[in-house]
């Protein structure tokens, strides 16, 4: 599948902001299943400083700062990616990569240890099941037990709270699933990316209506890393485009920054995932 993804972020300030410093991980990552063909950044105003780096987990980051007073900031990343099609979309697909899963075994800042997660996960444990089967079942249970709701949580909501109300967004689904899997000793990491959503039958796809997405990846010795999407209760296929991964959201935040002055700020995000 060939994708063109346009991700636009726009901050508007009440009064001119004096200085804005940002860190972004918005470039699709090269994996066994996907090949980024081009990435184009467009920044308005143009930044006084810009640097790229690759982090511990292999993700690419761009740091950039705006040092002159500005009333708005628009950042557009347009990337072209080729994702290998899944022949059997309902079957797990592993990347076959062998790695040391140490960072993804224990708690991490957004994925704490708590007995509630182990209690939940224990019900899926069975000596006859492989870790992959356990993980898959847990993803399906989380999908069935939780309600997608954008009004309940923010990024500061502890995952335990989400697990109480069982209402939240894909980050919450991913963090809770990670907490359960890790409490069972199954290494699992957080993946940031996009989902190609299909318009309702007979309708045109609306530009800008897509969004960033997050899911998880489970380490299974022989298969390598296998991606699953607990928010949708499915295996990850060619409809998922990967930006990068880490222990949790905190390691692979798409865009974070600090702004000096500016008063109240408003944020608009538009994502379009286009095929062909």
């Amino acid at each position: 599948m060939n994708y063109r993804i346009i991700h636009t972020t726009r901050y508007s300030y009440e009064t001119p902001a004096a200085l804005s410093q940002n860190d972004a991980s918005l470039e699709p990552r090269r994996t066994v299943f996907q090949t980024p063909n081009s990435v184009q950044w467009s920044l308005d105003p143009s930044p006084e400083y810009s640097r790229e780096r690759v982090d511990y987990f292999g993700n690419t980051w761009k740091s950039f700062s705006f040092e002159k007073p500005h009333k708005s900031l628009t950042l557009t990343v347009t990337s072209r990616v080729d994702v290998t099609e899944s022949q059997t979309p309902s079957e797990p697909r592993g990347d076959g990569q062998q790695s040391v899963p140490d960072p993804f075994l224990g708690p991490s800042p957004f994925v704490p240890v708590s007995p509630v997660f182990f209690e939940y996960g224990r019900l899926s444990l069975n000596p006859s099941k492989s870790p992959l089967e356990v993980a898959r079942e847990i993803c399906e249970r989380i999908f069935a037990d939780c309600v997608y709701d954008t009004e309940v949580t923010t990024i500061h909501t502890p995952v335990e709270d989400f697990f109480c109300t069982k209402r939240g967004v894909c980050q919450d689904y991913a963090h809770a699933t990670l907490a359960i899997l890790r409490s069972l000793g199954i290494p699992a990491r957080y993946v940031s990316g996009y989902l190609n959503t299909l318009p309702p039958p007979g309708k045109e796809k609306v530009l800008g209506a897509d969004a960033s997405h997050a899911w998880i990846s489970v380490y299974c010795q022989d298969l390598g890393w296998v991606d699953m999407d607990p928010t949708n209760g499915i295996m990850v296929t060619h409809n998922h485009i990967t930006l990068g991964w880490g222990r949790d959201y905190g390691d692979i935040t798409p865009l974070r920054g600090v702004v000096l002055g500016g008063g109240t700020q408003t944020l608009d995000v538009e994502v379009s995932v286009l095929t062909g």
Partner: protein
Amino acid sequence: MNVLSKDAVLGDFFSQSANELNQGIQQSKSLIQEMDLYRGWSESRDLEKSIDPLPWILDSNEIAFLRRSVLQWCRLLPLVLGDLFGRQSLVRNGYLPGGLLWDTLKFEPANVGAILPSAPSLSILRFDMVRDQGQWQLVGLGTEVPRGLGFALENRIVHSKSFLASLKPDNLARLAPFFRNLKEQWYKSTRTHKESPSIMVWTLGPKDPGYFEPVYLARYFGYPLVESRDLTVRSGSVYLKTLGGLEPVDVLLRWVTDPSVDPLHGNPGGITGVAGIMQAVRDGRIVILNTPGSGILERPELLHLVPQCSTYLIGEELSLLPRPINDFGQKDTQPFWTPRGWENYSTRLSFFAAQFSSSWEIMPGGIAEPIESTYRLQKDVWFLESTAVPQISLLPRGESASNIMRAGEMPSRVADDLHWLGRYIERAWLDARLIEYWRQLGVTGGADRDQEWESLLTGVLIDSQAIQLPADGVKPRPTLALSKDPSTWRLSLTIDEINRISGNLLDRLSIESHRILGGLRNWRIPSTPQDISKGLEELSLTIAALNGLTMENMTRTSGWIFLDMGRRLERAEWIIRTLDSVFQHPTSWDEHQNLNSQSLQLLLDIFDSGLTYRSRYRLTPSLGPVIDLLLLDESNPRSLGFQILQLTSHIGNLPRKSQRTYSSSEEKILLEVSTKLRLMDPSTVNTKELFELFTFFLGKIDQISQSIHESYLAKIESAESIQLRYKDPTE
């Protein structure tokens, strides 16, 4: 040459009488108190620190062992740090469990790329030890911030001044050469290899309980002391925000812990700090010592695993080992002098080592303190060499805090604080005087004249915002209001602000100024009418003393200029508001629509200019001469003209980055005001014109204030205006 043995020194101390020892203790306490201001707000003051007369003395055999074994750790620890943030071969080869690295040691992957694996920037390491049956054991490390280094230095200085009048062994190793080498090393440590790098001490500020040490060391080394909000990152380099503009920073000696370094760094991001500074570290544009991320080395869980890394990394067995976790063996004790005489306590020692060009060196001193004691005692630690050692000292001679920095280098944040301190001090003084004057009327009240004055003055108090009009709208009367609610007085708020700001300026004002300001810390508006007068007088005297001190003792740097500009702006505003209030008040006018002499007399009184007026005019007051004296007369320190003249001269003396080819906007406004004043003819001015002028002046004073802020202070933004963006919630 006075070369003494350990036994000879010990013998000398034990032969001293209780009286002699207690005298020394007293002397040491008063020396410590002199610096007490900087011990931070939260540090417990009820446990007064004192220095034990008897140092812990190490002879040349012990020194040789320590040097060898501590330096072995010093060679090893940077390799451990470099490996953790580099190849991670310790984990891959099973010397350190991978799980422990992530779960327990809180390995921060964001530091990969910021810590140089081949040579992590480590400058000073601290080693905490005990001795168990003569055997040295390591109980802790200080790798993040070298806490205790400042105390070690202070203890040495205080100890030698208090107890060593007669006893000065020439074979006692000095600390000064170590610190001199450190300075040289820091000078050479920039990665940009600048000819004269700018080195600063980075502190969390007075809220940090450990504030004392960075203040003390910054003074000792002669480096500027800066807080996070004084620093900014522009185009990948670190700058100090000063009055003269942005000044580059090359080396930061941090007293700031890992989570407080950079809000944009790590997971979760830092809680405070300088946004983007870790990118500057990654780019090699700044050296921070010790490198952020070095805190991982001092986690207790790692300490016990270091020995097994040693053979792998340096091919040596460590001769100094960590104290086993379950070791309950008796730690060696040391005698301490207490009010009950000599008592023995288990003692912990802290040593420091520093990295120089090619090798590490141990500081020939340290701190020894009882592990458990009801007293806050510390001992100096002596390295008694076998031969005499040379003497040098780095102590500044007669340097005061305010001239450590050259004028242009004053951080904008400090100038802003000084400006507001000036404003609030002046405001408190004006309010206190006016309220006292008003209160006296209430006491002597009764005559009609006084009642009219009282009503007039109450109006002035309300118009100048010194007191609030109560919610019921009934104007307060001095006799009644006193026993009512003093919280309607602006004075309480003003005093709170003075206390808050002076807390930010601990390292900027002289010790005497802080003593005087300390008197304000407990000042409250007295609750009984009898005490009010005394309380207000006390306040006025305190402020007069403070003003006297700043006039006489403060160097005329930018700091003083900002302090005085604050005072002048506050007073200028008050002058206009007061004149306007009196002129607006109906009782100020007689039946012929002329200002009556009573209200003019009141003005002269509250402007403290009655005496001058009488010596010049010897008449009952009339409008023209009063206006001349209070508005125009540039020689009267109570007049508007005088304030404008002073402000103009201050602005002219402030540092400027570029060559002055044109007047700044604040200079233009000042010129406008003084021209208006000078062109005024007091003998013909009518009241309508006056009211217009008052409005004009008030507007201009506000503009001057804004313009000064924009030109010099706008570079600082309060911490609250920095918004952390963790938005873009994925959906």
